[in-house]
């Protein structure tokens, strides 16, 4: 039996209902919330500000520092609070995914701090985090060439599926499930994040990238719309 129907009744190329909001943390220089269905991430941006400890400063350009974490009640099995191997890895890849869009060369010896927190998790948390962080960075007035949008594409059995949920990630029949999170720049469509957890053929990966690109276009539309609505504040 092959994979023909998704558990939540979506089409294979359909995203979950997305929600985005800017300015959710008044104290921060910029902040945003982004949700894929019941996966919710918030991001707060502080800076550019002086970078301490001094030996980490870069005299040639500004530094981006990302901190990703999940709240202990965000998943069904309580997550032990504090940094872990997983959260450190995601912080780092998020940093690399966002950095190509930023223009912080002229802020030498400073740091831009991005804090991403997942309030509720149902897969694709790093993608929701990147989307929220991209909005928050723009909201904080950091010079950027474009926005970043991310989505997770999966290969479940032999089908390419956009925006996985936890149930699909755990699918085991046939070829099983492969999770491929990816991030694109909004205008140049350059790929800034590509991870692959599982097995896939080269053709299927190409197919997944195309599906991801299409989904990211929808996400970046929502991001632009959200930022344009800030005016009322």
């Amino acid at each position, binding site marked *: 039996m092959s994979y023909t129907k998704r558990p939540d009744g979506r089409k294979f190329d359909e995203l979950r209902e997305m929600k985005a909001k800017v300015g959710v943390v008044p104290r921060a*220089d*910029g902040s945003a919330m982004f949700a894929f269905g019941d996966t919710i991430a918030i991001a707060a941006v502080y*800076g*550019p*500000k*002086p970078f301490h400890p001094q030996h980490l400063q870069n*005299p040639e350009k500004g530094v981006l520092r990302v901190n990703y974490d999940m709240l202990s009640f965000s998943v069904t099995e309580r997550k032990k609070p504090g940094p872990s191997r997983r959260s450190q890895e995601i912080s780092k890849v998020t940093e690399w995914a966002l950095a190509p*869009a930023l*223009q912080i060369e002229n*802020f*030498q*010896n*400073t740091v831009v701090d991005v804090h991403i927190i997942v309030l509720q998790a149902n897969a694709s948390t790093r993608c929701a985090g990147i989307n929220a962080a991209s909005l928050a960075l*723009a*909201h*904080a*007035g*950091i*010079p*950027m*060439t*474009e*926005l970043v949008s991310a989505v997770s594409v999966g290969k479940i059995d032999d089908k390419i599926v956009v925006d996985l949920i936890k149930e699909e990630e755990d699918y085991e029949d046939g070829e099983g499930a492969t999770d491929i999170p990816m991030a694109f*720049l*909004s*205008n140049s469509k350059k790929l800034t994040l590509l991870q692959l957890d599982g097995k896939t053929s080269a053709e299927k990966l190409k197919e997944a990238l195309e599906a991801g690109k299409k989904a990211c276009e929808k996400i970046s539309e929502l*991001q*632009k719309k959200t*930022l*344009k609505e*800030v*005016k*009322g504040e």
Partner: protein
Amino acid sequence: MTPKTIKEKTEKEEKVEEEIGKETKREIVVPGEVIVSGDDYLPGEWTERKGKEIVALRFGLADKSGRLVKIIPLSGTYIPRKGNVVIGKVLDITFNGWIMDIDAPYQSFLQAMEASKFVNKNDLSECYDIGDMVAVKVWSIKRKGIDLTARGRNLGRLEEGIIIRVNSNKVPRVIGKEGSMINLIKTETNCDITVGQNGIIWIKGNKVEDELFAEKAILFVTEKSFVEGLTEKTKEWFDKQKKSKKKEAKEEED
């Protein structure tokens, strides 16, 4: 001139005014968005030319004045410019000056020579102590930090009064055209006000009530920063506030 030609003229003038209105209309842009395309425009602050198009490099309001296209920031930290008057807090004292916090991305330093009054070289804390608020001017911006000066009119240590903080991008609205807004608030509230470009504002009045009233007025201005003809609106707001105060006073008398 016949009445007809006069009418034609006014119609033409109206058209011209409309066009100017359209040109100065500002729109929110997001990073990477194309603001205008064509060789007629020049890229200004926070914009970049990419082939034929002028692209936004940050989030803000796109402003087309004449041929120049620039972005007016709506949010973000204060970025110091030479000549800005800012209000800062003394963080530390070194042997030849003070390290200040002016809410900018870089360290800022006030040399002992640049203090607003006589300095006892042996004890700099006599002049400004840690935690004091000082109105200073940005003297120069170097790679390693900002140099400040406290020599000049209305600069120096701030004594008494209250300090409030607003979004530094809204400071131009608080000051108004050639100081129209801040002068209005000063005269209406009877307070002495120093507005730092970094969004820190010092208010000093004879009574605490006056200071709080001035704070209320400034918060009104920052909240309504998108409204056009804001100075007029603020005047109306002051009239209303006065009326309600009078009413309260009367009721108390009764």
